[in-house]
C-alpha cells in the first residue's frame, strides 16, 4: 500500500468535509462518523507500524510530484508513535465529549476532525512550508474548539491564544523565508544537505532562522518565556477540548525534534545545533516554573495545566541531551505524560460535576455524591502521575533518570525532576484531601457520575497500566524511533530514492 502515509491526513479531511456538508445531521450520526474516522486512523497507524520493520521510512509523493520540488510525506517510527497516540487520545476525548460536551457549541465534531488533519499532517510531512500549513490548520481548528461553549473566560483566554499564535505564525513564515532565501528549497531532506554545504557567509542567516524556529515551536510547546498563554487557555477550555490539547504541546516538541535533528543536525548531530544549546537551561526553567505553578493552582484543572508544563520541561530537558538513549526515554515519557494529563483534565470535569458551584476548586465547600469511587480513581491517577510504582509514571521517570546517570547533566536533571515529582506529590495530596477527604457533613444527593465518562477516565488510567505491561515492546519501539530520528542521512537517502534531481544539488557527492 503506497498510499498509506497519506491516509492519516486524508481520512479526517474527508470526514470533516462530509460533516461540513451535512452539518444539520443528527448529533448521533456525527458522533459515529467522528469515532469511525478515529478508529480508521488508529488502524492505519498500527498498520504502518507493522510495515516499518522492513523499511525505516514510508514515503508518499503528493500528486505524484517528485521531491525536491513536490511535497513528500515521510513516515518513520517517531511519526507512527505520535499518530497512534493522537488516535488513542482523540478516541477517548470523542467518547467523553459525546456524553454532552458536543452540544455546547456548533460543529464540535467537524472541528475535531480538522484539528486531527493538522496534527497528523504535521507528523507526516517532509516539507517545511507544508509543516507551516498543517500548523495553521491545527491552530485554526483549535481556536474554534477553545471557544466552544462561549463565556467571558473563554473569550479572554481565546483572544490571548489567537493573537500569540498569529504572531508565532508570522515568525514561522519569516524563518521559512530566510531558509528558502539561503537554500532555495523547502524539502527538509534537500534543505539539510544544502545547509550542511552552506558557505560560512550564510551561517548567520541559518542560525537566525534556526533560533526563530525554536521560538516558534517554543510557543506551541510552551517553553519558558512563551508559556504564559497555556494555563489560562487550558483552564478555560471545555474538558474534552483541554484533553485533546494535551497533544498540541507535543506537536511543538515533535516539530523541534524533526526539524533540528534533520535539517540543522545533519552535520554535527542534534545536540550540537545552536538551538539545542539554548534548550537545556530553558527546559529546566520551564520545569521549575511548572512545579511552582502546580503548588499555586487554585483548582484541579489549574494543577493539570501546570502538570503539562512540568511534562514539557522534563521532556525537553531530556531531549536536549540529544543522545539516542535520552531521546528514546523521553519518547516513552511523552506517551505517558500526554495520556495522564489528558485523563486528569477529564477527571477534573467529572469531579466538578458533583460539586455544584465549587466545581473542581480546591475548597472544602460541597459534598460529592460519589466520593468513594472517584476518590479511589483519583488516588490511582495521582500515583501514576507522580511517578510511584507500579504505573507508567514510575517506569518512564526511572528510565529518564537512568539514561541521564553519569552524564554531566545528571546533577541538575535529577535534582529538578525529583524535586518536581515531590512537589507534584504534595500538590496532589493537598488536592485529594480537599476534594475527597475533608467533606462537609451534609449528605449529597446529586446525580451519580455518567458511567461512560467514568469509564473513559478509568480507561485512560488503564492505559497507564498497559504502558507498563507492554513496556518491553514499546521501549524497543521508542529506541528504534530514536535511532532512525538521529540518523538523518538515512531519511535523506530514503527521500533521494524518489527524487528527480540529486538532493542538495549534488553538492555532497
Amino acid at each position, binding site marked *: 500500500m503506497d498510499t498509506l502515509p497519506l491516509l492519516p491526513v486524508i481520512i479526517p479531511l474527508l470526514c470533516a468535509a462530509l460533516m461540513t456538508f451535512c452539518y444539520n445531521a443528527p448529533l448521533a450520526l456525527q458522533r459515529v462518523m467522528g469515532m469511525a474516522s478515529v478508529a480508521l486512523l488508529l488502524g492505519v497507524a498500527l498498520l504502518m507500524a507493522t510495515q516499518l520493520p522492513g523499511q525505516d521510512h514510508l514515503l508518499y509523493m503528493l500528486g505524484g510530484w517528485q521531491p525536491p520540488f513536490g511535497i513528500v510525506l515521510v513516515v518513520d517510527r517517531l511519526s507512527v508513535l505520535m499518530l497512534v497516540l493522537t488516535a488513542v487520545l482523540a478516541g477517548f476525548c470523542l467518547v467523553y465529549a459525546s456524553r454532552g460536551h458536543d452540544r455546547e457549541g456548533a460543529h464540535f465534531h467537524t472541528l475535531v476532525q480538522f484539528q486531527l488533519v493538522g496534527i497528523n499532517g504535521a507528523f507526516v510531512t517532509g516539507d517545511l*512550508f507544508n509543516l507551516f*500549513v498543517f500548523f*495553521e490548520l491545527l491552530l*485554526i481548528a483549535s*481556536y474554534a474548539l477553545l*471557544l466552544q461553549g*462561549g*463565556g*467571558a473566560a473563554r*473569550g*479572554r483566554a*481565546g*483572544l*490571548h491564544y*489567537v*493573537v500569540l499564535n*498569529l*504572531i508565532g*505564525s*508570522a*515568525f514561522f*513564515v*519569516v524563518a*521559512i*523565508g*530566510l531558509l*528558502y*532565501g539561503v537554500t532555495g528549497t*523547502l524539502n527538509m531532506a534537500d534543505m539539510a544537505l544544502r545547509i550542511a554545504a552552506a558557505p560560512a557567509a550564510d551561517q548567520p542567516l541559518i542560525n537566525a532562522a534556526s533560533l526563530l524556529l525554536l521560538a516558534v515551536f517554543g510557543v506551541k510547546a510552551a517553553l519558558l518565556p512563551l508559556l504564559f498563554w497555556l494555563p489560562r487557555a487550558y483552564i478555560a477550555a471545555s474538558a474534552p477540548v483541554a484533553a485533546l490539547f494535551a497533544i498540541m504541546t507535543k506537536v511543538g516538541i515533535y516539530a523541534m525534534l524533526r526539524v533540528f535533528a534533520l535539517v540543522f543536525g545533519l552535520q554535527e548531530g542534534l545536540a550540537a545545533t545552536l538551538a539545542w544549546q539554548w534548550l537545556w537551561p530553558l527546559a529546566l526553567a520551564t520545569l521549575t516554573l511548572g512545579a511552582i505553578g502546580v503548588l499555586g493552582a487554585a483548582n484541579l484543572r489549574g494543577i493539570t495545566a501546570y502538570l503539562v508544563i512540568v511534562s514539557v520541561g522534563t521532556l525537553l530537558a531530556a531531549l536536549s541531551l540529544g543522545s539516542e538513549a535520552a531521546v528514546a526515554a523521553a519518547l516513552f515519557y511523552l506517551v505517558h505524560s500526554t495520556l495522564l494529563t489528558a485523563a486528569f483534565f477529564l477527571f477534573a470535569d467529572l469531579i466538578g460535576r458533583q460539586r455544584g458551584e465549587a466545581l473542581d476548586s480546591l475548597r472544602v465547600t460541597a459534598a460529592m455524591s460519589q466520593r468513594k469511587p472517584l476518590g479511589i480513581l483519583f488516588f490511582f491517577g495521582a500515583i501514576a502521575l507522580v511517578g510511584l510504582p507500579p504505573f507508567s509514571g514510575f517506569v518512564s521517570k526511572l528510565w529518564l533518570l537512568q539514561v541521564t546517570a553519569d552524564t554531566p547533566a545528571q546533577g541538575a536533571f535529577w535534582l529538578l525532576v525529583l524535586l518536581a515529582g515531590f512537589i507534584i506529590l504534595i500538590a496532589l495530596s493537598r488536592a485529594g484531601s480537599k476534594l475527597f477527604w475533608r467533606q462537609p457533613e451534609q449528605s449529597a444527593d446529586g446525580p451519580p457520575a455518567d458511567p461512560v465518562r467514568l469509564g473513559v477516565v478509568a480507561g485512560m488510567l488503564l492505559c497507564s497500566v498497559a504502558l507498563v505491561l507492554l513496556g518491553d515492546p514499546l521501549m524497543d519501539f521508542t529506541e528504534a524511533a530514536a535511532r532512525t530520528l538521529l540518523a538523518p542521512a538515512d531519511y535523506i537517502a530514503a527521500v533521494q530514492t524518489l527524487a528527480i534531481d540529486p538532493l542538495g544539488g549534488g553538492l555532497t557527492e
Partner: protein
Amino acid sequence: MELLMAITIGVLTACGIYLILRARTFPVVLGLTLLSHGVNLFLFSMGRLTLAAPAVLGDSSHHADPLPQALVLTAIVIGFAMTAFVVVLALRAAVELRSDHVDGADPDEDLR
C-alpha cells in the same frame, strides 16, 4: 530597489510590533495586519528581486522565482482569514467583557 524594499519591510514590522504591544484590541488587530504585510513582503523578496521577468522557467534565461509567489499567496489567504477571525473574536470579547482591553479589564480604569 533593495533599499526601498528593506525599509518598507522594516517600517511595516516595527509599526506592527509597536501596535501589537498596545493594550486595546483594535490596535493589536491592526498591528497583526501590518506585521503580516511585512512578513509577506519579506517572503516575497526571498525569491530575489527581479524586474520585468516572467515567473515561469523555460524560454527566457531571465526569470523570477515563482515559488515565493505561491507561498505568499498561501500566507495571504491564511492571514486574511485569521484577521477576519480575530476581528470577530475581539468584538465578541469586547461585548462579553464590556471592555476592549486585551486582558478583559483595564487595570487603570479607576485612576482616570
